[in-house]
């Protein structure tokens, strides 16, 4: 598909992010479909960072394999990124800092030296490097000279006319210089503005999660800062209070999770958001939600583990913990949205599921989906029907009809769901107990018959949820395929593009992307995979956690191969294709 890929890189703290953001935001507002991806490090200043933007004629959840233009503020940007530049790509570099760029000369680039720092200084200060770079970009991709002006006014208006003016000067200097010296070198795809002529929504998975929660009636978030989940908290801080929603920065993740459980118990839709290390600390509370049957929504934005790991890198390696964490056995739901819109939709749905089934619902994304801002058609998110279903509750009237002490919170029902009362409701008294308890929830109880009844009741609750209808999206022939690619969550865009390319080559290809992994939609998965000659499970982790689940729940041991990546970066389409091209023999490598 026609596309433009662009990247700016330099040291952290040098304005790389703002350069990227200005470019991406502006293009988005002009109606282009933009996907942006930040590469950053777990330190504040220094260290290489870059910001990549991919512009496509239609929506895409991926920043692209290659690079058409690279703007390098320093040599290490070239070192780290030159390989990505396509043949004929444009390398713009700050000639005030790099006298002659150094890279193995086996590729054919257009070298564009620009004295970025000097020009910035001339405009007033070296911090305006980002503006010069923006101007250069505009010229070389054929944007009008004043494309960035509105954003500049918006961002710097408060700081006074002068600041705005000098920023504009810097941009124009870059623009003029580049236009004169190099001219327009690359084409942008056609913009596709919204109906109102403006841009699409430009938001990340994290932002979408917070908005979905808000829309679904979440009025309490307790969280503890952690990359890459903190934007959920920021977005909540921005938008919850207006609707009476409270946001607490807890002392740690244990407190954050259990506070939200307390709020849910009190009748408020409440959630927490975190990433790996914090998620691990929440395991005991997740068990508490399970055993007390208190609704709870936990967002886990995965990053590279284990331990502190690579805090600014993406990974999908918490699947096992989400499925199997906490001691003992609880019912739980794990949703894995595959797009920003699904982040919104499933965040909202999570609250209904949590209340209906009175159990923890884990919403799993990762750094790649959570932090990448991208164009989303307004209609797409606006079109999501957010229902607020406060299910599985008992009403005041029903309680009034009962005598005091008659209501049984944990009544053993066929569905496993027992109507829930809320503190404040007369005659609804119960004790939410982390111990095993009786139907009446008045006492912990160790009787073995009671135990079996309560345990079984809890564990059968989710049988009523049709995960097989909800839990996946499939693209491809249903009966038989030569190869079927399987993934979950954020990898959808790349797997989808890889599948498309395989089909272009005439390979009968299926693409199954899971949007829920617990309960596991095994009937659907079994049906869709049974006709696949080869099954390639694509995961951002090192052990093939999803593949393991598929083998356990469905089988197909001898047709599954693992396409794994765990270097901290999201998959490229090419990597997936490379795996598919490799010989059949890897299949037998599963037993390790």
């Amino acid at each position, binding site marked *: 598909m026609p596309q433009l890929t662009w990247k700016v890189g330099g040291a952290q703290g040098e304005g790389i992010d703002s350069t990227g953001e200005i470019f991406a935001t502006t293009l988005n*507002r002009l109606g282009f479909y933009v996907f942006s991806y930040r590469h950053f490090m777990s330190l504040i200043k220094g260290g290489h960072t870059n910001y990549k933007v991919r512009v496509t004629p239609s929506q895409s959840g991926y920043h692209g394999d290659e690079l058409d233009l690279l703007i390098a503020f320093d040599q290490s940007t070239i070192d780290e990124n030159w390989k990505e530049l396509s043949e004929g790509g444009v390398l713009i570099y700050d000639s005030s800092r790099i006298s002659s760029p150094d890279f193995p000369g086996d590729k054919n680039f257009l070298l564009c030296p620009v004295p970025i720092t000097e020009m910035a200084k001339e405009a007033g200060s070296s911090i305006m490097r980002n503006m010069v770079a923006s101007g250069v970009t505009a010229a070389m991709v054929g944007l009008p000279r004043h494309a960035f002006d509105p954003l500049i006014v918006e961002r710097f208006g408060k700081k006074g006319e002068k600041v705005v003016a000098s920023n504009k000067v810097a941009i124009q200097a870059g623009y003029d210089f580049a236009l004169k010296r190099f001219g327009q070198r690359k084409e942008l795809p056609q913009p596709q503005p919204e109906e109102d002529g403006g841009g699409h929504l430009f938001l990340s998975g994290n932002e979408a999660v917070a908005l979905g929660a808000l829309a679904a009636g979440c009025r309490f978030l*307790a969280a503890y800062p952690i990359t890459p989940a903190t934007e959920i908290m920021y977005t909540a801080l921005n938008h919850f209070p207006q609707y*009476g929603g409270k946001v607490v920065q807890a*002392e740690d993740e244990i407190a954050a999770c*259990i506070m939200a459980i*307390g709020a849910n118990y009190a009748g408020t839709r409440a959630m927490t958001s975190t990433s790996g290390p914090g998620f691990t600390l929440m395991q005991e509370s997740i068990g508490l939600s399970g055993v007390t049957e208190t609704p709870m929504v936990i967002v886990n934005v995965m990053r590279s583990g284990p331990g502190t790991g690579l805090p600014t890198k993406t990974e999908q390696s918490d699947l096992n913990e989400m499925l199997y964490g906490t001691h003992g056995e609880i019912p739980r739901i794990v949703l894995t949205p595959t797009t920003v819109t699904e982040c919104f939709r499933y965040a909202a749905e999570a609250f209904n599921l949590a209340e209906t089934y009175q159990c923890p619902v884990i919403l799993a994304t990762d750094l790649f989906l959570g932090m990448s801002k991208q164009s989303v058609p307004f209609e797409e998110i606006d079109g999501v029907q957010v229902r607020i279903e406060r299910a599985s509750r008992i009403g005041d009237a029903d309680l009034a009809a009962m005598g005091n002490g008659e209501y049984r919170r944990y009544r053993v029902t066929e569905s496993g769901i027992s109507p829930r009362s809320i503190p404040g409701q007369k005659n609804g008294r119960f004790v939410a107990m982390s111990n095993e308890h009786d139907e009446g929830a008045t006492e912990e109880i160790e009787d073995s018959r009671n135990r079996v009844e309560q345990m079984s009741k809890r564990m059968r609750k989710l049988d009523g949820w049709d995960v097989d209808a909800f839990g996946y999206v499939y693209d491809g022939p249903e009966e038989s395929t030569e190869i079927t690619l399987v993934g979950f969550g954020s990898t959808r865009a790349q797997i989808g593009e890889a599948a498309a390319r395989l089909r272009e080559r005439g390979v009968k290809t299926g693409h199954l992307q899971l949007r829920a992994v617990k309960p596991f939609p095994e009937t659907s998965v079994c049906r869709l995979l049974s006709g696949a000659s080869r099954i390639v499970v694509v995961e951002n982790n090192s052990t093939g956690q999803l593949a393991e689940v598929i083998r356990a729940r469905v089988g197909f041991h001898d047709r599954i191969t693992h396409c794994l990546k765990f270097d901290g970066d999201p998959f490229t389409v090419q990597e997936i294709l490379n795996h598919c091209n490799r010989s059949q023999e890897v299949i037998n490598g599963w037993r390790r």
Partner: protein
Amino acid sequence: MATMKDFRTENKPTWCPGCGDFAVLAALQKAVASLGLEPEEVVCVSGIGCSGKIAQHFGGYGFHSLHGRSLPTATGVKLGNQDLTVIAAGGDGDGYGIGMGHLVHAVRRNIDLTYIVMDNQIYGLTTGQTSPTSKKGFRSKTSPEGAAEEPVKAVETALVNGASFVAQAFSGDVKQMTVLFEEAVRHRGFSLINCFSPCVTFNKVNTYDWFRENVIRLKDREEYDSGDRDAALSVMRKTHGLVTGILCREERPAYHEVMTGAHSVAASKMDLNIPREDMREIFHSFR
């Protein structure tokens, strides 16, 4: 109006006969009844331990949470519905051992709840190990040669971190305890009441008699100003912590009144539907 009876439950408490926790339960039942509260308006959130069973035995709503986590659970309950009267309760191990961090942070927030610690200087439910409040040299199954650590100074810790209501009580004096609980529940903000609540089964040192001999009752004398935090610290030091009564009281806004998202309507009572136009405006702010 509810009476003390309404805060009783059908099942008899399972504490050992003579356990100090009976007095705590009775004082709490009396206090909330005399404050005119209804059972459905009061939530007792407890940790795990013999003491933690109070949530089961108290006739209001209850949350028998995890070991050490009564305070964050109770914080969530209060912020989920600020109209509820929230009592957090648990043992010395639960609150001052594994739960110590949460105590300090609950104090800092001045979250409006009453925290009752049944301090028996021992781990009761796990059958008698040394607790963080056990005196130095205390012998138990886990400190056969005597505890090597200084006991934690939880009350002082609450005091220096600005707790807005701090008191101590003794299970041998239910009357005083009841009054203190009433004051604490009435107080708008965080209240800590450390209750000497003897474990008759495992702690053969800090018995009722021992406390009767050693604990001083802080008379509300003219000289003692419960608004003076330093006076409280100095009384605690002079009595080696063996003093009952209100140690400190300070009026300041409670967390739910000033936190991000503070609102006069309880979160659980909000209309959750956001007008479509509002939602669209929010969407459009992401552009």
